């Protein structure tokens, strides 16, 4: 009976996702935010079942796998200087802020680090989609936005491995950090060496014409990589990510993407719903003011950081501001991070609920800000210009 009920609830969840998603695309809202809201509503009707939880786990794995698969190592190598510097500025402006907020909220060091990651990482899914939809792909600031995103995603993938490793170890001390870094680098090194040395071998193994066997083989590679990472005390997600990177260099890349995409879309949607369902209404009231506070502070730092990067690369004020205003939405990675560590319940501000509020705010408002950035920029620049004139006038008078 339990199985039947959970299958039915899964079906209802999917139908609700479809209807909500349809409405969301009408008003150009991000699906991520809508799926979380659906989850929050559905928790009133049925609990998170084992099936949903299992699919949600697969959702993280597939998401990271696809991310690795579609990751362009080529453009990373070609633009490494630009990516590195814009990424570092963005990191300096936004990562320590989260640590500080975590400390203010009374989190311990691991939790504060986690919060820093959650606040730091912009959603590349939402932003990239908005850029395409708003026809901004040719704008001068766009390449810098994408460079920041690519850096953030790389950073967070590594950070995820580290933070889960540290959390599994239990505490932050020199020995723990050493062990976790050793494990993480060994794991990364294994895949990088495999990708570099056995390209032909990997190509040969996955060159299978039979469609069904092909899918099964690819799935086994993904799940084994994820499982192995989990087995050595790292995050499953990082294993899947590295498997994706490994296979992204093969000739079958496109076919793999086609084959796995439906699994990924399905399980990722369920992952967002499950996350929404796990947000506790009891906490949410108290989380909203904190969430709004963090949202405002971190939006300012993101916009200012973006504007700063624009200035460094000689973009116009307008383009620089658009750069900053495009970095507000948070999404998939923040949620993955929030769910990555199970925390004890004595924490004053439960990180899952807080992240829920924060991601919803920033995904929804961030998308709107991106779309409506023009009038803000106009207002901002006109104000600056009048200020500029006012301060400039007496000076000119003196010179004359």
């Amino acid at each position, binding site marked *: 009976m339990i199985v039947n009920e959970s299958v039915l609830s899964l079906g209802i969840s999917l139908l609700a996702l479809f209807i909500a998603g349809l409405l969301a695309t009408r008003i150009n809202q991000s699906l991520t935010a809508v799926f979380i809201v659906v989850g929050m509503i559905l928790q009133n009707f049925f609990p998170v079942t084992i099936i949903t939880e299992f699919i949600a786990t697969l959702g993280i794995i597939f998401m990271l796998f696809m991310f690795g698969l579609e990751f362009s190592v080529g453009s*990373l190598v070609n*633009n490494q200087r630009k990516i590195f510097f814009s990424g570092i500025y963005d990191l300096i402006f936004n990562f320590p802020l989260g640590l500080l907020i975590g400390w203010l909220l009374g989190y311990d060091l691991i939790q504060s680090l986690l919060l820093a990651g959650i606040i730091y990482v912009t959603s590349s899914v939402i932003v*990239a989609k908005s850029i395409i939809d708003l026809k901004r792909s*040719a704008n001068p600031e766009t390449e810098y936005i*994408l460079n920041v*995103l690519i850096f953030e995603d790389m950073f967070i993938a590594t950070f995820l491995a580290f933070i889960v490793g540290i959390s599994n170890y239990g505490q932050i001390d020199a020995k723990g950090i050493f062990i976790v870094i050793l494990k993480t680098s060994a794991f990364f090194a294994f895949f990088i060496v495999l990708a570099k040395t056995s390209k032909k071998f990997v190509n040969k193994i996955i060159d299978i014409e039979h469609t069904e066997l092909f899918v099964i083989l690819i799935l086994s590679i993904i799940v084994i990589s994820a499982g192995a990472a989990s087995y050595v005390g790292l995050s499953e997600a990082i294993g899947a990510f590295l498997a994706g990177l490994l296979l992204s260099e093969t000739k079958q890349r496109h076919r793999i993407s086609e084959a796995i995409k439906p699994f990924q879309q399905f399980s990722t949607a369920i992952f967002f719903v499950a996350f929404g369902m796990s947000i506790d209404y009891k906490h949410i009231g108290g989380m909203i003011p904190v969430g709004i506070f963090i949202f405002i502070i971190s939006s300012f730092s993101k916009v200012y950081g973006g504007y700063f990067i624009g200035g460094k690369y000689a973009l116009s004020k*307008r383009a620089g501001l658009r750069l900053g205003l495009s970095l507000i939405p948070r999404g998939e990675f923040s949620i993955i991070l929030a769910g990555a560590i199970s925390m004890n319940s004595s924490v004053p501000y439960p990180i899952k609920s807080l992240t829920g509020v924060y991601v919803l705010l920033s995904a929804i408002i961030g998308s709107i800000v991106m779309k409506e950035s023009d009038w803000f920029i106009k207002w901002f620049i006109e104000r600056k210009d009048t200020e500029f004139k006012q301060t400039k006038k007496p000076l000119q008078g003196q010179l004359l």
Partner: protein
Amino acid sequence: MSEIKECDLPGIGKKFTLELDSGDKLVVVIHFSGEREVFKFMKGSDEPGSVTTLSDEEARQIGSILSGTYFQPVLEDEQKLMMKNVTMEWIKITDDSTLANKKIEELNIRKMTGASITTIIRGETVIPNPRAGEIIKPHDTIIIIGNNDQINKFISTFEIKQRIENDRQ
């Protein structure tokens, strides 16, 4: 003339920027999906003045028009100048041609086939409306005019093998 600037857009595709002599900028973004977007940026502006989205196929068509390699398929296939019922045909005279080294009047072309020679092209010189006494030489190109029947008759009567496929400029 200015160079084309190339730039990766990770996750989206590739961007090509061409600064025009007028100071405007033309930007082409090729998406990974195959879709092309063409943006025009006015001089000094960093927001596009216009955007056009093209599918892969449309982009190729536009591309061939811009590069000047696009022809109407009818012209390309037949490579003949079609006027209502009249056809002009370019014919290369070979060494062993029955036409070679003969005066036009000797050949009785008009009488035997109905077609007539309008032009002789000899190297760099062009002889329009050649006189009856003109001698056709090997390696000449002649242009004859007539309806389809007359042209075909000309070709069979004088055993022409080498018709010129659109060498006329």
